[in-house]
């Protein structure tokens, strides 16, 4: 990674020093968010992208996919709270880790087609507050998710790292959902 030489401490240290373990993934995640935003801004929106048949509009498809992702994200928060023993009188069952991993994968994979449609067909826009917030948070979500995935396999991290990143990812997705699918359904009614 090109950024690594700058983050490695001057003293001879292990490549996996504490700072590098968090800083390098963070820089990569920031780069991902920035790349998405710059692409969305520079690319001339086509207004068209492949989509799933059987819905009334691309907006409806995306709203339902995003809502699916959001529901899985709620499962993420719930399962994480159980894993960390934050729910009184509920001991973490053996399958909770699997539930957390698979609901996360599902949420991410549901969000990808929505993002492709957004970036390719519509682009990064700022013609209203809602649209601007949505554009910024959409890019931030994928950046934050990238950081979390890159940091997950690292060991001996400060205990707050994963909960904080999880909260960041969830907050971004919640904001994205409220400024798009929630707006869509409340404006046009819940439709397929």
């Amino acid at each position, binding site marked *: 990674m090109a950024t690594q030489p700058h983050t490695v401490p001057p003293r001879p240290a292990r490549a996996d020093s504490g700072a590098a373990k968090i800083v390098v993934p963070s820089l990569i995640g920031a780069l991902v968010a920035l790349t998405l935003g710059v692409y969305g801004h520079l690319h001339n929106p*086509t207004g068209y992208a492949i989509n799933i048949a059987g819905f009334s509009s691309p907006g409806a498809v995306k709203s339902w996919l995003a809502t699916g992702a959001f529901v899985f994200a709620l499962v993420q928060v719930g399962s994480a709270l159980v894993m960390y023993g934050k729910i009184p009188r509920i001991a973490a069952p053996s399958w909770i880790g699997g539930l957390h991993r698979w609901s996360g*994968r599902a949420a991410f994979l549901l969000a990808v*087609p929505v993002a492709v449609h957004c970036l390719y067909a519509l682009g990064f826009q700022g*013609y209203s507050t809602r649209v601007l917030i949505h554009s910024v948070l959409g890019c931030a979500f994928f950046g934050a998710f990238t950081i979390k995935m890159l940091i997950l396999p690292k060991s001996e991290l400060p205990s707050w790292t994963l909960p904080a990143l999880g909260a960041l990812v969830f907050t971004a997705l919640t904001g994205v959902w409220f400024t798009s699918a929630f707006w869509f359904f409340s404006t046009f009614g819940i439709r397929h």
Partner: protein
Amino acid sequence: MNIKTPYLTLLVGAALGAVLLVASMLATPKAPASPIAAATPAPASSAPAQPAPSSPTPTATAVANVPARANYAGEVNGGGASVAISIHHGQAIAYVCNGSVIEAWLKGTAANGHLTMTGKGHARLSATYRTKRAVGHVIAHGVRYTFSAPAVHKPSGLYRAIAIVRGAKIKAGWIVLPDGSQVGSLEPNTDAAAPSATRAPVLDVTTGTAHDGNTVLVATPISGVTGSGF
């Protein structure tokens, strides 16, 4: 469990995104079929003969129920065109359009429940407005229409898009009615001596965009309630 599966998750997501992106690029029509050539509603010719009815403006004895901010949109009497009016604290913007050559943008003032507006090409509008309805007449492109337009709420109402393409200023307007139907016209060159409007491409109100050939028109809602477009 392999400890590196988060990397795999990212890769799968990136691959899915790349596949969808490439598929979209391949599927995007190079030159979208022109929607302009389609239905061209019978314009002007029959309408000017319409006798001017006595002023539909109701006599306002007491100026009550006059909103400071309002949006109205509806078909003109007899159909054939639509009109939209947005009032924002004394300022008013209106658009009348038949989805083809007859169209006019008007500006003016609103006071005491009465509207007086003018636009290019001797366009004029006069109306009385109350909370629920605006009633009056408009002259655009030499055609006189009377109307009684109800108050409307988002996403119904008036939308405007302006773009510069190869030095020419494109201006498009759409009126979205409460039933979701829309009518819009597009001036390909607003600075031309005799601007000629054509049917506007369909406006996607969910995204606020319309596609004129390879040009993406980003529409701004004109709303007296929110002040957008004023």
